[in-house]
């Protein structure tokens, strides 16, 4: 029941806010409160071992739509809840049109529906809904830049979902089911059939366009950099992760680990390199999102329980600190009046102190400083990798992250001047506290012993060494600024890249 109530309730509340516009803002916190209690109940039930799953329509699994709550889905719904609370606190004093809250309701509804979905076609419908809402959110302020970014996003996403639909068609034709659990049973021993390989390629490529994988999601930097800060925080923290959740669900059924590892490595490295050479604050954060998706894909690709646990906790951790960074960055851009880091440093006195502390916490977390969220998740992931090449790749991505965020160091000094006027302390506080409390909270998700035993002093030392090396490398590299090619982010080139990567993915699946 509760699983149905979470998404459906938000849809109804969205419609209600549309009808009763004056109360939309007041209604929203109560809706979040209700969510919190429902998600809490589900956590208790799942932790107690009772299965929380339901097949809608009374037709049984092969025809009905199955919704099922597990730890993965619940971890993401908790992330959605925390981000929604922080964003609400951030926007509380601003006079927004009620329409914005309607969109937030629909966004949360589709997120909750997606994390519990177990049916290929249901996933298709919900992803389309989610992206429809995110187009509207990106273009919310109706600036030409945002609308153009949103339109590019729309065209690429529609192309991806058409591919996904082709894949769904092939799978249904050969197996007669769309339910993921049934599908896993029916395709045992068929992994080298040509139709299955084609279908897997279509599904993976279609979802990857939404999931923020570098070679597929070339719309992402423009969309995330141009949207308003609260929207960027939600998109980068939450919506991108939904693509990753779908990839995770697919990887439990289809044999797609090799393309995921290859795509993850590529995304991590290229995203980190682009982030290093970008001096526009929000664009830097968007590129860093791309590079962090690399971690998640590598974890999913490895596929052992520990690696998947690492992936999920990194996804949640990244949602928290990237949300915090985007919210704080929005205020930095607003108070200094410039989108570029050098100008912001010149006018740093104007930035409120709370914003600088928030930026500091977010930067330390993304760099992987030991007790914070980023370290915990990275530690789990690197404990799960046994191959030296992948381990080096992860180290390179972390190093790239530290180098690119070293540019922010002059902005961060919390003691220099600055007023507290207009600071969004509550919003930052919620996210910062959850970043700090992430390590004990992750016991909920995974057994305490497993978490503690995989986070050794060795990892802590490695993290600190990476941070030190990154700061050093930044001082060497900052004299050698190069402008990387921006042409690939244009629409036509993006489509060509997607097509060529489609064939690469197909070859990887077919011949290795």
């Amino acid at each position, binding site marked *: 029941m509760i699983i149905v109530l979470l998404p459906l309730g938000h849809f109804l509340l969205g419609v209600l806010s549309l009808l009763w516009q004056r109360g939309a803002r007041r209604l929203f916190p109560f809706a979040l409160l209700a969510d919190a209690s429902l998600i809490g109940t589900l956590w208790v039930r799942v932790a107690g071992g009772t299965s929380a799953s339901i097949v809608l329509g009374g037709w049984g699994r092969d025809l009905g739509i199955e919704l099922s709550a597990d730890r993965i889905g619940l971890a993401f719904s908790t992330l959605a809840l925390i981000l929604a609370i922080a964003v609400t606190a951030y926007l509380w004093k601003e006079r927004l049109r009620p329409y914005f809250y309607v969109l937030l309701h629909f966004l949360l509804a589709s997120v909750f529906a997606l994390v519990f979905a177990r049916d290929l076609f249901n996933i298709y419908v919900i992803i389309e809904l989610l992206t429809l809402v995110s187009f509207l959110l990106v273009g919310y302020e*109706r600036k030409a*830049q945002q609308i153009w970014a949103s339109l590019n996003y*729309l*065209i690429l996403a*529609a192309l991806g979902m058409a591919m996904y639909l*082709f894949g769904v*068609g092939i799978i249904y034709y050969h197996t007669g089911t769309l339910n993921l659990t049934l599908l896993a049973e029916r395709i045992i021993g068929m992994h080298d059939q040509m139709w299955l390989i084609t279908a897997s390629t279509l599904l993976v490529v279609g979802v990857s366009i939404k999931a923020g994988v570098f070679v597929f999601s070339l719309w992402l930097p423009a969309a995330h950099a141009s949207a308003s800060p609260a929207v960027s925080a939600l998109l980068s923290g939450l919506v991108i992760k939904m693509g990753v959740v779908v990839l995770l669900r697919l990887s439990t059924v289809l044999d797609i680990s090799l393309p995921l590892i290859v795509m993850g490595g590529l995304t991590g490295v290229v995203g980190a390199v682009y982030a290093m050479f970008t001096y526009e604050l929000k664009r830097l954060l968007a590129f860093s999102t791309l590079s962090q998706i690399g971690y998640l894909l590598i974890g999913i690709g490895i596929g052992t329980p520990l690696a998947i646990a690492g992936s999920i906790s990194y996804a949640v951790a990244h949602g928290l600190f990237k949300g915090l960074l985007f919210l704080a960055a929005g205020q930095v851009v607003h108070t200094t009046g410039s989108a570029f880091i050098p100008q912001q440093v010149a006018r740093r006195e104007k930035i409120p102190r709370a914003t600088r502390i928030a930026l500091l916490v977010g930067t330390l977390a993304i760099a992987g400083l030991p007790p914070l969220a980023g370290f915990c998740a990275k530690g789990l992931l690197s404990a799960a990798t046994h191959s030296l090449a992948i381990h080096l790749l992860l180290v390179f991505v972390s190093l790239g992250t530290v180098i690119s965020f070293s540019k922010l160091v002059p902005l961060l000094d919390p003691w220099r001047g600055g007023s507290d006027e207009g600071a969004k302390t509550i919003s930052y506080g919620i996210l910062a506290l959850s970043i700090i409390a992430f390590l004990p909270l992750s016991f909920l998700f995974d057994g305490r012993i497993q978490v503690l035993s995989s986070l050794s002093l060795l990892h802590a030392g490695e993290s600190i060494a990476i941070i030190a090396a990154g700061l050093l490398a930044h001082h060497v590299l900052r004299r050698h600024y190069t402008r990387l090619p921006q042409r690939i982010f244009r629409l036509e080139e993006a489509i060509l890249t997607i097509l060529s990567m489609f064939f690469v993915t197909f070859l990887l699946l077919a011949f290795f």
Partner: protein
Amino acid sequence: MESINGIMIAIVLFGIGIFALIIRRDLVIKLLALGLIDSSSVLFLVSLNAEGDGIAPILYGPLAANYVDPLPQALVISAIVINFSLLALALVFVMLLVERYHTTDSVRIAHEVEKERQS
């Protein structure tokens, strides 16, 4: 015409759509191409599961054995509605862009937007 079936037409339509999406600069034509791609996926889903001489799964008269599977046809209704709303939204976006820049040329719009971002 035994050799031409819905699946082949769908794949050809998909190819034409992608081709037009890449080489045409006009945004409205790009959206038409997108519509073509969406329709091709719908056609593919329906015709893949409706091979041979099956009849439409509508109950009239006595039950026949050779109904085609009704599920894909139920699925594509959702797909059609979703694609319709996506295209409608995309056209609104194009309209707003045309009001601002007075052109539907994607390359010129991209250029103008980039110029604004740098300043």
